[in-house]
């Protein structure tokens, strides 16, 4: 009897783990299907913010063009990069030296690309 009780207990525990696994994998799959745009906006805004941060810390005048495809709703507002893909919006802080002026600007999406420009102590996107 002792052995069968242990088997029953282990089977219950195995079932519990299966249920947890199903719930968790559903969450991950759901995240990748329904929040795909959110993940893309997050990655996109972080990447653009990092590039702007690098360009700001340089002592040269730079013009850098980035191909972004169709998702080119990008703007700089209050030292943050704001990206919109579909209905999802994500903003990421730009870390830069405080003598650099990061101008509020919008992407013009010329040739499916955005241009980051730094002239003197000013940085903006076109």
């Amino acid at each position: 009897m002792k052995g069968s009780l242990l088997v029953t207990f282990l089977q219950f525990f195995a079932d519990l783990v299966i249920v947890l696994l199903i719930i968790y994998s559903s969450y991950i799959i759901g995240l990748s299907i329904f929040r795909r745009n959110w993940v893309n906006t997050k990655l996109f805004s972080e990447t653009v913010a990092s590039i702007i941060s690098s360009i700001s810390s340089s002592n040269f005048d730079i013009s850098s063009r980035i191909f972004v495809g169709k998702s080119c709703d990008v703007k700089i507002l209050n030292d943050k990069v704001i990206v919109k893909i579909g209905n999802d919006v994500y903003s990421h802080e730009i870390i830069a030296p405080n003598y650099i002026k990061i101008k509020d600007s919008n992407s013009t999406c010329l040739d499916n690309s955005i241009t980051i420009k730094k002239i003197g102590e000013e940085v903006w996107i076109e």
Partner: protein
Amino acid sequence: MKGQVWIISENMIDILKNIIVIAVLLGLFLLFAIYNIKINETTEERKIFDAVNSIIGNKCLIYEDESGNFYRSIFDEEKLNQDNVCLNSNEFEIEVSDFENTWRLGSSQHKKSFTLPITIYSKEKFKFGKMVISY
């Protein structure tokens, strides 16, 4: 004693089977859990790298020669003594050291830190040093 065979009971086989199933499922569960944690963690790491980039090229801290050229990742001792980071974020703590002197700028909770080698210009000499940035 010769010729005796040890037979595992059916209960024992069931127990072993269940243990293997539980181990496999727990492994899968942890795999998913770790994957999710990694997605969340990248934001903090990215902020540290952005800050490192901004600090090693920061005119308020780096060495400038007589012609007005700035040298990336070469810190000027005189500028470090002025205690002015010139960064638009105050979430970071920067510790610059030449292994004789240490300069601490800013403050943070020290959740994550990143170390890199740098050079310090001091009294017309270039010294080897390190910078630790904490977030």
